[in-house]
């Protein structure tokens, strides 16, 4: 068993599937609630977390988690206060990335591989990393499972949630925490720039053939895991960067299911349903 875990390819596969299985169902909420930029802002801020963690000689995972949490909380509390949401998120996402990159350059005596954080370095996943990833993924799935009904109700309408005795703000907080966790565990696998892709693309690819939210989340998780495994395989064969290759495979799934849906709509002699 120990020799099995020593294989870097197996560790990479486990890391990829671990992140995908948590990111995809969470990504469904990101899609349903139109929070795509929200994920971006949180992910981009995490490079600042990397810099701070290295500066204070703290674990990178902790630094990323804290900064992502702060960022996600800032965004959700600033929303609905008269700012135009897309502008606000655009400002926060890109400026936090810029501040992070500048902060990294201040680190003296520490040489860090910036590319590894921007695009991920799945082949360098250690056994400790693997435990962190699967621990974080399990926590995210547990959160989603425990609050599933409440999260869905709050996603539909905050007034319906209030009327049912739920507090939509608490559900928003649950999603915020889950998002920060996914960002923190995914940074090693796909890197800061592509975390949103891992959230959004499997969910979007699962939409055409799902009739209920549960089936969409389940299908998204499967597509995410297949993308991780196939992307890893392909990047090994073609000698391409692994994180981007995983995202490319996921995008391929999206193209396939969208095309399949269009053909099905045509066959049913029914106009395509508006999706956006």
């Amino acid at each position, binding site marked *: 068993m120990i020799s099995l875990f020593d294989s870097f390819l197996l560790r990479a596969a486990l890391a990829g599937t671990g992140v995908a299985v948590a990111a995809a169902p969470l990504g469904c909420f990101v899609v349903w*609630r139109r929070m795509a930029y929200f994920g971006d802002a949180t992910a981009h801020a995490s490079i600042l977390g990397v810099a701070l963690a290295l500066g204070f000689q703290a674990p990178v995972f902790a630094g990323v988690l804290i900064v992502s949490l702060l960022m996600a909380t800032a965004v959700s509390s600033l929303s609905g206060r008269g700012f135009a949401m897309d502008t606000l998120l655009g400002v926060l996402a890109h400026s936090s990335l810029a501040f992070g990159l500048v902060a990294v350059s201040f680190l003296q005596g520490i040489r860090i591989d910036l590319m590894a954080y921007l695009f991920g370095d799945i082949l360098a996943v250690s056994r400790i990393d693997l435990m962190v990833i699967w621990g974080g993924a399990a926590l995210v799935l547990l959160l989603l499972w425990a609050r599933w*009904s409440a999260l*869905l109700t709050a996603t539909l309408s905050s*007034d319906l*949630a209030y009327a*049912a005795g739920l507090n939509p703000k608490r559900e928003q907080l649950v999603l915020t925490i889950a998002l920060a966790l996914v960002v923190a565990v995914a940074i090693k696998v796909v890197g800061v720039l592509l975390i949103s892709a891992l959230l959004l693309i499997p969910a*979007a690819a699962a939409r055409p053939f799902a009739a209920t*939210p549960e089936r969409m989340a389940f299908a998204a998780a499967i597509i995410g895991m297949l993308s991780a495994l196939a992307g890893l395989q392909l990047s090994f064969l073609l000698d391409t960067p692994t994180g981007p290759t995983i995202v490319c495979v996921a995008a391929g799934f999206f193209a396939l299911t969208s095309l399949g849906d269009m053909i099905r709509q045509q066959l049913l002699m029914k106009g395509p*349903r508006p999706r956006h």
Partner: protein
Amino acid sequence: MPLISLQNLSVRFGGNTVLSNVSFAISAGEIVTIVGPNGSGKSTLLRSIIGAQHPDQGQIKRSPGLRIGYVPQKLHIDPTLPMTVRRFLSLPQRISDQQAATALEQAGAGQLASRQMVDLSGGQFQRVLLARALLCAPQLLILDEATQGLDQPGSAGFYQQIETLRETLGCAILMVSHELHVVMATSDRVICLNGHICCEGEPEQVASAPEYRALFGTGTQGALALYRHEHNHRHDHSCGHDHGQDAVDQTRPAAASETRP
């Protein structure tokens, strides 16, 4: 004991006072309708009652264990969210197929269980929302302009369903409506709201109250069509604002005389 009672409720948004000193109570089995012009605080009042809006002053007393069914004014379901009618009814509490079928039947949406929410017509959608509100066996059903966007036969059918429900389930109903002719025909009590309660009472009383006429019918056409009796009492309100300024929608009261027996 009333199901719910509001005492001196005031809500402010920033510097704007949206509701001031609103007090009323709803007893079991009553149909109470709130009428008022746009921006008069109707939706804010309902949102306060369901707990979505915190009052700045005053309080809301609910009878212990009060079950409220809420039908929102409008519900936008994002097209990216797949949701069958059956699944929608199970939010947030899971229910049995039998319960779902009964609620859909009561709301007049019997055959819709397997349809996608985004594919429903406006009228079907409202009936599904109504069915969902019925699932908790409500003692108080709250409807916020539930027939907005429906054509006349559609909304007439919807209100008929509501009346049937009151008879079969015995629940109290609190609704906001713009359709004054329907309001006058079906309500036990009408509350005329414009930031504060301008007047309230039985439909005939309210229709002939000067405050109501100032809001909904300047001049003689419209409001006068609602006269059912001699105006033998006076409302001595001293409102701080000019009701006439807010006059809206004078066309509908005229239809009221046709719908009344």
